[in-house]
């Protein structure tokens, strides 16, 4: 297996543009980098505290990697259809009923993505007037991830809507069994 096939999921390919596969791979890599980043910063945080000369700014680095990982991961999970669902009712539907429900569901996600982008951007702009202690970095650097995540979620949702209406939301062939969960 090459890197690309391990980073870009093959399921529901009829809902995807190949041009965005690279973006999915990039978001996955960012998730991994964020995990490695905050693991490393927590490690050095513990180490420097233990030796008696703590680097206080490491806590800011940790929380930044942590929060960026969550929101970028949420965007990646939108394209990969890896989010948590309460039901898979749409998968039992066919024809126009399915098309309408899938469209409605993605409309809800699109609206949420829009709110994250627009109101998140307002927060981002306001964040230049507030600073994180002790490094005095503008809070905007922290808030930037919400509009980024919102924009990616919107992009991936539009991609699924467009291709869903062109190719149908139902898969032509059976999807491989795949469950990604944490509990």
């Amino acid at each position: 297996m090459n890197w690309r096939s391990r980073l870009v999921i093959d399921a529901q390919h009829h809902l995807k543009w190949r041009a965005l596969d690279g973006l999915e791979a990039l978001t996955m890599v960012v998730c991994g980098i964020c995990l490695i980043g905050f693991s490393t910063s927590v490690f050095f945080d513990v180490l420097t505290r233990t030796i008696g000369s703590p680097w206080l700014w490491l806590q800011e680095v940790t929380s930044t990697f942590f929060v960026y990982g969550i929101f970028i991961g949420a965007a990646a999970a939108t394209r990969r259809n890896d989010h948590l669902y309460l039901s898979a009712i749409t998968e039992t539907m066919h024809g126009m009923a399915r098309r309408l429900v899938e469209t409605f569901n993605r409309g809800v996600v699109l609206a949420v993505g829009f709110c994250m982008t627009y109101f998140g951007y307002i927060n981002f702009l306001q964040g230049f007037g507030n600073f994180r202690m002790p490094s005095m970095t503008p809070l905007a650097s922290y808030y930037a991830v919400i509009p980024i995540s919102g924009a990616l979620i919107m992009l991936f949702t539009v991609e699924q809507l467009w291709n869903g209406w062109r190719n149908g939301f139902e898969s032509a062939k059976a999807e491989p069994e795949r469950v990604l969960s944490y509990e």
Partner: protein
Amino acid sequence: MSSGFILLLMGFLFLAFGYLGVPVAFSLIAGVLVATALTPISFPSMIAQLFNGVDSEALLAVPFFLLVGELMTSANVVGRMINLSQAMIGHLRGGLAQVVTLFSMFFSGISGSSSADVAVLTRTLAPSMGREGYDAGFIAALIASASTMANLIPPSIMAVVYGATGNVSIAGLFLGGIVPGVLVGIGLMIYSYFFGPVGHMTPRSSFMGLFNAAKDAALPLVIPVIIMGGILTGWFTPTEAGLVAVVYILVVAIPCLNWRHVSELPFDFIKTGLLYSIPLITVAAASAFGWMLAYLRGPDQVSEWITHAAGTDPRTIMFLLVAAFVIIGDFVDAIPAIIIFMPIINKLTDIGGINPVHMGVVIITTLAFGLITPPYGLALLMAAKFVDVRFSVALVRSLPLYVVFFAAIAFCIFFPDVVLWIPKHVLPESVGCFKSPAGTGYICPT
């Protein structure tokens, strides 16, 4: 517009969107945004609330425990723990069914995730059980039920989230979870012994066989010792303990047990990087939902209903909460349920004068039970899917096992002293005890 109406609308929208197939996190956010439009709260401040939900040092433990489980599973070193379980109890009636339960207890001490447990057991022991004649429904039911122990026996991701959002000692919840975890384990073993299929019983292992199996499994079994030992000695917080366990696996366990896996590590990090974002974006959304619930005075209204029915009797309050959470757990994922309803739980904990760790253990046990109840029994859904049996068949075979969970929950409610015995003696501060001014021992709340 009345706050009661907005509350109902928000809850209805969340469930309606969720059951139509909108991801849980987006259903929650959509419900909150509609409620925001009907209140004087500004949209940017509600979006910023998503941050506040995950800006917590304690929640950093979640990815570390997930990473521990992922590394142990993908590096394929859990086979040694299965061999040890087999050597210890493979000769009992029920054979592999007993091994499944004991292995789950061991693995629960490492991963904190039922899904990881289900994935490992369905890949490793389920095929052997099938060859030995166990019916697929029983295999799925037992694996799903045993996997719930991952949320009870420390380290538990549910306990981390509960502690972080409810301001309850996570170490106390870890220690308190041992009693229901072991009760569920013993209950499942008793059920398999008396009522389960006979299975294929292996000859009793010799002392040397047991010793060798224990020696082979020693390196992975150090992980629970690192995690709990570090927390209990006060050397690490749960987050730091998770990190130290990750470092131990990367530096010691994988190089010693499966060094070829080193080249796969980047993918393990990438996969876990995605995996941790899924519950935590739900935590972010649920905390915004919980904030709105509190703003609309939802906890006051619900606790008024419950105290109207139960007065201030702690046991009745707990039974009503358990009944509510059995229903809630059937429809809503455990993590958002904890966060959304935490203000209500806290309020009722105060009214009933209940120890917060005791309440936490009871709620977590109830939500762990929700992992095998329909329609949203995630562990049972996964186990049925991986074992390749219809969900309804697995559900019917899991019904008798519900008795084990009811007994464990009832035991926890009626015997708080037993549940709190370990935390009270190992980490007294975690259950509200404080050092006696006389300098001899601790004074604990009754």
